[in-house]
């Protein structure tokens, strides 16, 4: 497994750049790193709101929220979420929030 270094901190990641240890390794510095690879200029309050919603839901339920739930809790329609995270809620937002890589037939 690969290790990524950013601003002096090392993260264990898989081949798609998702954190292997999840919340244990996650911090603001990780958000700053993913921001670069996902083509996001600045982390706005809206980005933060999505990240917080994902982390809160994951902590409570052990799974990532369904897209409709994410839209409902943040108030952002899917279109807006794609504007914030060009790779989408799974590959973009979940990666940034330190959630496990989405699985299944994707």
């Amino acid at each position, binding site marked *: 497994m690969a290790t990524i270094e950013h601003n002096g901190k090392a993260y264990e990641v898989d081949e798609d750049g998702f954190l*292997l240890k999840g919340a244990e390794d996650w911090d603001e510095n990780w958000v700053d790193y993913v921001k670069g690879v996902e083509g996001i200029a600045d982390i706005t309050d809206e980005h933060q709101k999505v990240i917080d919603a994902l982390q809160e839901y*994951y902590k409570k339920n*052990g799974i*990532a929220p369904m897209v409709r739930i994410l839209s409902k809790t943040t108030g952002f329609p899917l279109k807006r979420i794609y504007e914030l995270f060009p790779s989408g809620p799974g590959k973009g937002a979940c990666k940034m929030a330190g959630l*496990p*890589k989405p699985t*299944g*037939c994707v």
Partner: protein
Amino acid sequence: MGYDPKNPMEGRITDLGPKYYGDMLPPVIKENKGKWLYHEILEPGVLVHVSETGAKVFTVRCGSPRLVTVSYVRDVCDVADKHCDGHVRWTTRNNIEFMVDAEEKVGPLKETLKGYGNSFPIGGTGASVSNIVHTQGWVHCHTPATDASGPVKAVMDDLFEYFTSMKLPAQVRIALACCLNMCGAVHASDIAILGIHRTPPMIDHERITGVCEIPLAIAACPLGAIKPAKAEVNGEEIKTVKVNNERCMFCGNCYTMCPAMPLADPEGDGIAILVGGKVSNAKSAPKFSKLVVPFLPNTTPRWPETVEVIRNILEAYAKGAKKYERVGEWAERIGWEKFFEETKIPFTDKSIDDYRLAYDTWRTTAQFKFTSHTAAYTK
């Protein structure tokens, strides 16, 4: 403008959809669209469609391995350029069809195709064994229990005479899926090859926390065999799952959802054979295929056991079925107990349904035929 990784959204074109199919039609198809009167199969692999305007289109169908290189596609394009004004199409069973608008053009086209050796075998029409609809296998997927391209090549080599002829009672559709996700047509094919596991998943407690959404793995199980559990990893208590092996039927759904629960096993994995499915509404309603052979080993690279079983089923069907009768219609007419006798397949308890709505599949009548299989019980 090239792609700029620093500005991924700049100049980005999206939501275009596929190209309009009308742009790629041969002129004779475009002009006679919606006006076709009738068609005939001139010989195995060659069709003619006649329009009400009198126009004809001759179609030559060739087998393809589905998984092909760009050079192979370029060969297809060369043939299409030479004979069909650059037009060609692929069928829903991944055969290739070359179309010409005059009968005298068929001969040269066939000659050219033969010039490519075995690349473009002509056939797959009428009461034949056409191409095998199949999946990724060990070429690309992470959940397979068998390979796809390998067994398909082995089976089609053996049944090649049925691809290039039309001597069966009806068309026989063979499909393969390398796990019971059944991507493709396995659940509704005359003969189906299905990759199966026979061992429960192995749980990687060290990885599970980071890579798994545990409730998803639990909900993925059709038999409720997975439950949340605690385990100790490096002196720390972590949340994980526990599998009740007695309840597990090795479907692999949990591995699809959770990378820390792999179950592939070289000895345990193999192939099951299902028969009797169809999707058409002709004469009888669409049917699901049913399990007849619970396990055959993965004997690479030629899968001789699988090839033999499929040929046996096909030959028994060709001998016993009436004209136009599909495999499933034949089996239901003679009775499944007779099907097992005719095909000399040993009946096992694995064919007896035991999943939720199983009761309806058992025999609730005294109507049955004595066979060599029942003889053992009635002696």
